[in-house]
């Protein structure tokens, strides 16, 4: 499984990657800026994501919304911000590629002359509404903020959500936004990937023409927080407008592409992928004490965390769920997965990996993945090596990883319960109020 590509670094430091795929007359343009909420400071959270919104509001030479000309060209267009990176992409008909490049280069090189207080105020309102819609008005929506807050100390860059704290958003000034752009939004901190119906030589030529004149900008120092460790188990209680209580158990684990990261991914599959997985089978299928259960390895650039999330069936408490989960984890730590379980997890991973390569663009498509490997590993051609991490995993490797990371004494347990029903939570939990 190899994705053929070419990479060039322009004189100003911009990484350009090209992958040809001529099956459909479309081209994906995907730009990563190596900046996310982990580059923010406490008290100024939410800036990276709010900034992403402003990138669609016009630049010096096209000082209007970015959606209209791109939609008129038949493009699909979006962007996203997470803790580690911000990405922007368009999927355009092959004949409209230059429109996307013109616009993407204009906002990389010439955003600030078009940035106004009015645009900023409007998009801050939009972001506050995004937060209300996706966090505050959504059942269990504030749990992630509480969990990250407990898992990572206040000065750690994963302590907060990328959507930010409302008070911080309201306190952000236009001057801070300008500084943010000058620090992070320039060719040296960006990676541009093309995938689709385009010749490699032409893509490189267009990249040089549109982006080659943009000033390189300052070097961005990597974010390297001290490694974190929980000294004891933390138990938190959050009351929310929900009908059924939900349990979140979270542990520190290695970050993206680090040793044991793939093993933790496979363990998540063994635990909760499908009816025959261990936790689903025990909690939902056989004991019927939970309505759903999911495990996930959250692999981030400088650290990871593993989570088991389970929702109680009516009449069950989160203590019931915790006991049942701990029992299954203890078995897994003692015996490891069976050969059959490991093989199933591996083939499922391979299938998901290949399905992800069906699209040239969009979140997780080929262009996005080329940039992910390039930005995090310095090598866009990491597809086969990535897959190999999963293929060479062993039963003992999974068992040892479970033993190393999934310790009862080093985790955060968050109980989200219906308002006025704290007795449904895991015992001895401390009430918290999310900010």
């Amino acid at each position: 499984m190899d994705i053929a590509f070419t990479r060039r670094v322009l004189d100003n430091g911009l990484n350009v990657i090209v992958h040809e795929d001529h099956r459909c007359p479309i081209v994906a343009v995907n730009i990563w800026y190596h900046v996310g909420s982990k580059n923010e400071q406490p008290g100024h959270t939410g800036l990276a994501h709010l900034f992403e919104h402003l990138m669609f509001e016009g630049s010096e030479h096209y000082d209007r919304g970015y959606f209209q000309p791109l939609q008129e060209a038949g493009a699909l267009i979006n962007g996203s911000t997470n803790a580690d990176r911000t990405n922007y992409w368009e999927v355009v008909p092959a004949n409209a590629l230059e429109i996307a490049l013109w616009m993407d280069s204009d906002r990389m090189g010439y955003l600030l002359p078009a940035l106004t207080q009015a645009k900023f105020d409007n998009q801050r309102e939009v972001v506050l509404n995004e937060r209300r819609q996706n966090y505050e008005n959504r059942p269990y929506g504030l749990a992630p903020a509480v969990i990250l807050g407990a898992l990572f100390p206040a000065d750690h860059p994963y302590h907060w959500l990328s959507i930010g704290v409302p008070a911080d958003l309201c306190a952000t000034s236009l001057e801070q936004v300008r500084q943010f752009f000058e620090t992070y939004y320039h060719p040296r901190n960006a990676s541009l990937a093309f995938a689709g119906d385009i010749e490699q030589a032409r893509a490189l030529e267009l990249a040089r023409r549109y982006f080659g004149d943009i000033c390189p900008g300052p070097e961005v120092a990597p974010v390297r927080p001290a490694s974190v460790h929980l000294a004891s188990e933390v138990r938190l209680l959050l009351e929310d407008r929900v009908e059924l209580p939900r349990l979140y158990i979270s542990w520190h684990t290695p970050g993206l592409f680090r040793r044991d990261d793939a093993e933790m991914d496979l363990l998540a599959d063994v635990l909760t992928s499908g009816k025959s997985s261990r936790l689903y089978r025990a909690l939902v299928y056989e004991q019927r004490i939970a309505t759903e259960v999911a495990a996930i390895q959250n692999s981030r650039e400088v650290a990871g965390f593993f989570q088991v999330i389970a929702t109680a069936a009516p009449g069950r408490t989160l203590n019931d769920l915790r006991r049942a989960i701990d029992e299954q984890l203890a078995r897994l730590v003692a015996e490891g997965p069976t050969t059959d379980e490991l093989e199933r997890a591996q083939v499922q991973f391979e299938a998901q990996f290949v399905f992800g390569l069906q699209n040239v663009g969009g979140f997780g498509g080929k262009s996005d993945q080329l940039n992910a490997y390039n930005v995090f590993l310095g090598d866009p051609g990491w597809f086969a090596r990535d897959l190999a991490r999963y293929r060479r995993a062993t039963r003992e490797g999974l068992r040892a990883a479970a033993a190393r990371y999934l310790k009862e004494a080093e985790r955060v347990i968050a109980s989200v319960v219906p308002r006025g029903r704290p007795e449904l939570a895991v015992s001895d939990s401390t009430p918290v109020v999310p900010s």
Partner: protein
Amino acid sequence: MSVDRSRLPSPGPEPDLRFPEIAKRTLPNGLRVWTVEHRGLPVVTLMALVPAGASSDPFERPGLAALTGDMLDEGAGGRSALELQEALARIGASLDTEVGPDATLLALAMLSRFTDRGLALLADILARPALDEREFTRLRELRVNRLVQLRDVPPSLADRAFSRLLFGPHPYAHLPMGTEASLGAMRHDEVCAFHRRAYDPQRTTLVAVGDARHDELFQSVADAFDSWPAGSAAEGDLTAPSRVAPAVGSRVAIVARPGAPQSELRIGQVGAERRTPDYHALLVLNAILGGQFVSRINMKLRQQRGYTYGARTAFDFRRMPGPFLLQTSVETQVTAAAVSDAFNEFHAIRDARPATAEEVALARASLTRGFPRGFETPEQVARALAQLVLYDLPDDSFEQFVPRVNATSEDEVTRVANAYLRPSEMVTVVVGDPDVVAPALQSEGFPEPQLVTVE
């Protein structure tokens, strides 16, 4: 060569459109098999379309089609539920069962080296499900619990209240998931009877798209599905009678969520069926009104007012006329102002500010130029074919799309705006804080909101 930044580049000549070549055959048992060759990645996507969905639910049993669809992989072909799940996992395949208003669609994607194994499992699931009573009881409990959980999810409450108010006694009045009461009363033998009636090779179409030749794909399907016996399709048409939902006067309803920071909104009326000759003109209308980021309603509510993270409208085209609706979520304090803005836009596009030549050109361009990317992956191609089957559309529908959209004039858009947008018949549903929202709506001149609950 330096860049001319005084204006945007013009697009080059339009690329040639290539649509999938469909091969169609029928097995002796009546199963229709459609295949498409799609090369590049070692992947095959299968979709089985069974034309029985939530609108085939008996009136007193909303949720029956969906629960039946969910039961299919709870054991089949001699394998228990867990064994079947393991067999699917062993080939990295995951089954998606989507029960919509008009049909049930089973989708199975897999690596092409496992095509025959995947087809054999899909044949078991469709033709030989165990429909075991213990699994039924367990699954019914899970679904009831899911509905309990959804009592707190504003978009779900809004969708359910809106459908019921809009469609009244019509088969589209309930969502596929059904209600707590209906599921509580549902019996195992009802699921078995529904399966016997609805799952019949004579009614079913199997679409296979992937990295193999037509004849290879067809032969694999034939080997797996030949043994599925034809049922007695004489039992009649399963799709609900083609009834048009009753027109109702404008109504405003609130689902109470005291203290909510936002209001979840649905505003709409009965729209059009997929086979309407006005389909392409309605797509253009909707793109101008609310179908895209740059549409009038999103530009007003998000970009100008800052009321919301986003607002969208859509015609939900179905076998019978489905809803036209606006969906958004706005800050509580501005709810009434947002509803007013929305109605102003519905009125304006009919007469005061009809679609302009520029707007029509933008909408046509965006719809037609964006069309080819809908055929990039095997899954997209299979889904497009399933639409042809479900709505009885001619094979040249894909070729016709671009010319038909491009033939839509401004007058045509204004005509369909007047014919299909009827603000005086629209239903407005707000899931939000009634103490704030109700008085504000009335002072904006809306009728007194009716407080409703969702079953």
